[in-house]
């Protein structure tokens, strides 16, 4: 993305700083290191070291209270041969398949509406962003009440039009849709804020020029808005996908993985393995499997972005 950005008439940019003598360069490196330290220290302590710890744990059998026992790759072999692992990944994919389109379409729709709003945009933006910064436990409990099959508001409203609402999170067929609904509602604001910023960065002149040239609103949207919004879209999709793979809080609070295991997503399975079944080793191995899958999916996305993301 650097080579293609040649602007022939632009004056050559002055070098950020003249290449000085060796001592000065060392000083510069030292300053950079100092500025990086505040984030490097927590990153090492709270992310890299625990990650290494979990890799080590994944090679052991450990119930948290007995000393660890070396298990080699047994945990990985067992997980790969266990149908519950497959089921957990299946449930996670089901979640993603519902959550991603919903949160993207909803967030994009809101961003388009707010982009046209003449007044109150900031207030509305704050209102829609509120759920994003609200604790998941609060949001999950609220949705659990709203979707309560016994006296919840949603089923009461459905009852008003003479229909009978489903069992929501007590019914294995409706449990995952319930979780998806709550998740999309909460994250809508995040997608909206990013896309709205992207929309507002598109110069008005482009649309005006297109209109002068006789483009319809749809053509303008298709050929100007969408391509110029693609960096924001890419960012939102990568982040939402990673978050979606790690879905846990809402599942744990709303269904605990039930009913009949219908919402046992990968991270819920990791939690159960550690804290219910005393198998921290197997749980760590599953965490690493999930990490590798997220890494591969993200790398594929970063490669694929060259085809569709427009940084012009």
């Amino acid at each position, binding site marked *: 993305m650097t080579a293609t950005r040649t602007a022939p008439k632009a004056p050559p940019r002055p070098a950020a700083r003249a290449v000085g003598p060796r001592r000065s360069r060392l000083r510069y490196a030292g*300053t950079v290191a*100092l*500025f990086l*330290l*505040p984030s490097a*220290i*927590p990153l090492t*302590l709270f992310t890299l070291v625990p990650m290494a710890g979990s890799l080590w744990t994944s090679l052991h059998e450990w*119930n*948290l*209270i*007995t*000393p660890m026992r070396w298990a080699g790759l047994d945990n990985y072999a067992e997980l790969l041969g266990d149908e519950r692992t497959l089921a957990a990944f299946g449930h996670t994919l089901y979640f993603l398949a519902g959550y991603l389109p919903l949160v993207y379409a909803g967030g994009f729709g809101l961003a388009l509406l707010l982009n046209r709003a003449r007044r109150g945009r900031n207030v509305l933006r704050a209102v829609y962003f509120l759920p994003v910064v609200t604790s998941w436990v609060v949001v999950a409990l609220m949705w*659990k009440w709203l979707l*309560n*099959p*016994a*006296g*919840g508001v949603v089923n009461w409203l459905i009852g008003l039009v003479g229909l009978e609402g489903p*069992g929501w*999170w*007590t*019914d*294995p067929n409706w449990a995952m849709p319930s979780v998806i609904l709550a998740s999309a509602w909460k994250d809508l604001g995040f997608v909206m804020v990013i896309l709205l910023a992207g929309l507002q960065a598109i110069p008005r002149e482009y649309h005006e020029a297109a209109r002068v040239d006789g483009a319809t609103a749809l053509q303008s949207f298709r050929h100007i808005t969408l391509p110029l919004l693609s960096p924001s879209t890419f960012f939102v999709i990568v982040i939402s996908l990673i978050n979606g793979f790690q879905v846990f809080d809402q599942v744990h609070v709303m269904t605990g993985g*039930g*009913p*009949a*295991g219908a919402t046992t997503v990968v991270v819920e399975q990791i939690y159960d393995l550690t*804290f*219910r*079944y*005393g198998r*921290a080793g197997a749980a760590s191995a599953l965490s690493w499997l999930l990490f590798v899958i997220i890494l591969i999916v993200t790398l594929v996305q970063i490669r694929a972005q060259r085809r569709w993301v427009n940084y012009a």
Partner: protein
Amino acid sequence: MRRTTKAAAALLTAVLATACSQGSATRDTGAENGKVTLRYFTFSAAPDHVADLDTIVAAFEKENPAIDVVVETAPFADYFTKLQTSIAGNTAPDTFELNYENFVTYASAGSLLDLGAAATGDDGYQPSVYAAESLKAFTHAGKQYALPASFSTVVLFYNKTLFDAAGLPAPTADWTWAEEKAAAAKLTDKDKGVYGDFQPVQFFEFYKALKQAGGEFLTTDGKKTAFNGPAGVKAATWLVDKVGDTMPTEAEIGGTADYDTKLFKSGKLAMWHNGIWQFAGMADAPFEWDVVVEPGDQSKASAVFHNAIAASATTKHPAEAWAWSRFLTSSQVAATTRIKASWELPPVSDQAILAGYLDTTAKPANRQAVFDSLKSIALPPVIARQQEMQDAMTEELSNAAAGRKTVRQALTDAAATIDGLLG
């Protein structure tokens, strides 16, 4: 300018580093002025018996002015998660409560202090104050790793006011499933939100009902399941058929915490299978209620739960931990406080103390049922992968209860899963 920036960055780093080291999980249990702070972690005190525990703590601290007991509580559902993590994180409480099902795991893991060794030098200690079999239950490899603290059983609670209003005779010790079922059907009035019966559809009720129906959960060598037969079908059907008939469904319960407790307390539940730890909470229920030994089928069988106090192997205060464990489990104050508050039963050998349990005027009247239920008990099957077994059984039973599977299919699937856990 640059120098100030650097200095500021260095300062920030230093602050961060100190913050990190302060945030580490180590906790100092030694207090100033020579007092020893002793932590005690419990699941059975909150919410109904915190004040009773405080009474015992106050009496102990009066006798042992150099020890300050700090109580920490957690609900049963979270208790073992917290305990495990604190042991793994080296912040284990000095003393903590354990139930019998978990005792072996912790004892064999080496997490518990050998109380026998900690007791040396305590001349006042007499093992004979404990009921002998209770004390023996908490030994492992010949060592006393915990002291029995309490035991409790599950009985049939019934709302006498509802029975009287319907003109039905109250349950008796001779009842079988057939009588319970007939009464439950007559007492259920869904329009008024009144249910005839409540028995959770889960592992703990199933192994007991299985025993009542004359079946066994595991084969005698413990290597395979044995419940997938006529007795198992009968027991599972007994539990499952109540749901949606004389008992609310999962959707009707809607995940409400302590739904059954609230239902009974509001006078809208005629019969309720639950433990004697509910006595205190139901004391001020605004209607007549009593208990009776659970109805059986082929035979009677009641569930018994047994709790003990253990000390952490890593405690810095073994002598103080011993003194507190002993006081909490066998002192006169502790035993009488438990009896007076109906806080389960103390596992003491002195029958005079236990007799106090019957002498009280507090509800329920038929406290004799608690002792009668001990005459024929059903012990839970215990295997290495206990929680997985319990979860598998509960999940298949709820599948049958919700009509997602037939009882036979659910039992076959549960047996296959549990055989896999045993193999």
